[in-house]
């Protein structure tokens, strides 16, 4: 049995759902970011796998994967800066305690 | 079942590399470091175990092997045990892409992958994880501080390091380490002094600037003085590995020296032509030999009672011999050239370590972000411009 496109797609679906579970159940903002990173990785696996199996001579999928990795770095930097700023004023990183907008 | 063979080959090469790392870089590195430190501080260095203290490191290793493994009470045991392995393995993986020389038409390299230098910098960046793991899992405030300092330092200095690597990759037009050396052989000069034709020797300032940027960043990346804040003995009592004992401590040392030699090897490959033999006119080689003899004579006459007289004299004799051999058209094996250049760079790094005081954290970060990074970027830009205008 050969490894085909389907193997990668299913793996990436499982990884994506794992990340999603982390995002909806975690209280800590940093842990939520970790879940998002997992989801982005799942998307990247998809892109590279499509590149390899659907259009092997092109590099479009890899380009998009690289762009997503760059944007993930941006997202992590800005997200963590926000976490730090929130921690400085509210002294917590638990997202369900950051609720002053509700007042 | 070709993949079984591949796997066996990989395991064999790993064992070979690890032996090289443990014996050459860690044992000889520590010995050389202690000797050089001794000479610089007007001491003798290790002297009693074996001839000239050569077996001192072997004795130390045996001693470390016998020691008890102590795990702090509230440490995270799994992570605590994993950290030294991560550091040592990351240093080991660096060496996969380092070519040592040629044997016939074969290049002596574990694997010449087409993203060689990218792979190298990726593996070098994994080290920081091991350090951070060690710092956090020890449950010790000094260790944690050392780990955090190390993280900020390594992230800052990865950028100038990558810019230096990028510079060499751009000039050579390839990311493969073997390709970079071959590009230098083809143009007949090291990237340190020569850019590809038609620029040639006029490109020397660019090469020297790139090499200096890379070396400074590499020194910081391997946590050596003057950038050794993560393990500053006098304020953090050794930093992130303060809680480690016995062989785990030795693994950290192994990782550190393996990484340092790896950086020096990469610098050799990128800027000093790797295994390539230097091409100088015969009279220049004679001049090298004569210069070495003159230096030896001056030292003999003026500083006969100095502690360093023996090592300096033997170095001078070695240089004179190489110069004479080359001037009559002789050849040394390429691997000897590679090791000569490597050890020269390593000596330079050790010399720096025992000469300069430690920087403060803000000075350290300023140097990276305000000096090295703009310099590296400008140099990259200028070199690219010059190469393009020169018709590449």
């Amino acid at each position, binding site marked *: *049995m*050969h490894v085909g496109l*389907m193997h*990668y797609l299913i*793996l990436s679906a*499982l*990884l*994506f*759902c*794992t990340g*999603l*579970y982390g995002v*909806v*159940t975690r*209280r800590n903002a940093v*842990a939520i970011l*970790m879940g998002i*990173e*997992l989801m982005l*990785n799942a998307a*990247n696996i998809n892109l*590279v796998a499509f590149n*390899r*199996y*659907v*259009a*092997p*001579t092109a*590099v*479009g999928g890899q*380009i998009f994967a*690289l*762009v997503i990795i*760059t944007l993930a*770095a*941006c997202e*992590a*930097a*800005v997200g*963590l*800066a*926000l*976490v*730090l700023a929130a921690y400085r004023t509210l002294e917590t*990183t638990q997202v369900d305690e950051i609720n002053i907008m509700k007042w | 079942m*070709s993949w079984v063979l591949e796997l066996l080959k990989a395991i064999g090469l790993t064992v070979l590399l690890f032996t090289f790392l443990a014996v050459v870089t860690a044992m000889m590195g520590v010995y050389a470091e202690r000797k050089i430190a001794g000479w610089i501080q007007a001491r003798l260095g290790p002297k009693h175990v074996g001839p000239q203290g050569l077996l001192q490191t072997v004795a130390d290793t045996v001693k470390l092997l016998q020691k008890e493994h102590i795990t702090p009470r509230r440490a995270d045991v799994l*992570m605590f045990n994993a950290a030294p392995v991560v550091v040592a393995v990351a240093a080991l993986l660096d060496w996969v892409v380092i070519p040592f020389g040629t044997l016939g038409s074969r290049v002596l390299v574990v694997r010449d992958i*087409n*993203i060689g230098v*990218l792979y190298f910098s*990726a593996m070098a*960046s*994994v080290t920081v*994880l091991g350090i951070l793991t060690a710092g*956090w*899992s020890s*449950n010790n405030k000094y260790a*944690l501080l050392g780990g955090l300092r190390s993280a900020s330092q390594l*992230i800052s200095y990865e950028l100038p390091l990558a810019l230096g690597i990028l510079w060499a990759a751009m000039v050579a037009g390839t*990311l493969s380490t073997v390709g970079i050396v071959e590009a230098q052989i083809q143009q007949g000069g090291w990237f340190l002094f020569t850019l590809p034709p038609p620029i040639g020797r006029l490109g020397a300032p660019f090469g020297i600037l790139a090499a200096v940027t890379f070396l400074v960043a590499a020194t910081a990346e391997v946590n050596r003085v003057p950038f050794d804040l993560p393990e500053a003995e006098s304020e953090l009592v050794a930093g992130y590995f303060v809680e480690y004992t016995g062989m785990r401590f030795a693994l950290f040392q192994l990782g550190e020296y393996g990484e340092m030699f790896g950086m020096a090897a990469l610098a050799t490959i990128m800027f000093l032509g790797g295994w390539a033999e230097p091409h100088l006119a015969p009279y220049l080689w004679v001049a090298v030999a004569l210069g070495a003899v003159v230096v030896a004579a001056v030292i003999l006459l003026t500083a006969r009672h100095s502690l360093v007289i023996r090592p300096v004299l033997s170095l001078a004799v070695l240089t004179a011999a190489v110069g004479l051999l080359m001037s009559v058209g002789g050849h040394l094996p390429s691997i000897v050239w590679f090791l000569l250049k490597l050890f020269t760079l390593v000596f330079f790094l050790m010399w720096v370590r025992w000469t300069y005081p430690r920087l403060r954290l803000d000075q350290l970060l300023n140097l990276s972000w305000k000096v090295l990074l703009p310099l590296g970027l400008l140099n990259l830009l200028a070199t690219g411009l010059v190469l393009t205008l020169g018709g590449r």
Partner: protein
Amino acid sequence: MGELGAFIVLALVTLIPAVVVVTSHNIVRAAFSLVPSFLGVTGLYILLQAEFVAGIQVLIYVGAITVLLLFVIMLTEGGTGVRLRQVNEQVPLGAMAAVWLAFVIIVILTRTVWPVGAGSPPPYNATAIGNAFMTDYVLIFEATSLVLLVSLIGAIVTARGEE
């Protein structure tokens, strides 16, 4: 045979630590578990003959993002001893949603006929990617650079706080 074995090993290396990431009660361990997961994905890229993406993956994800995450955790959480309740009351709901979504995606995937392209990837990957970035995808490249710059400034300004 070898390829399938490698795929299964890499899939396990990717998924098991990922589960630890989202379930572990120790946040630092969760962050460290990201590393094997990212390395597994790197292995998958190598299996897919995308070496350049694999190298960048290790450099950015393992070497930078994980370190950044750990850095912030250590700045905000304190030492090894602190154990806060890490999950909210949505655990059953979240688990159900995740399982349901995985089920739906897999059903959709298996019922779709995917086109399969012929040919093999260009031998020297990095050159092809570089050329594509500078020709067909130059707008994306520039836009990404701009986003990177903006987020750099934004992160510094946000994290710095008031003077």
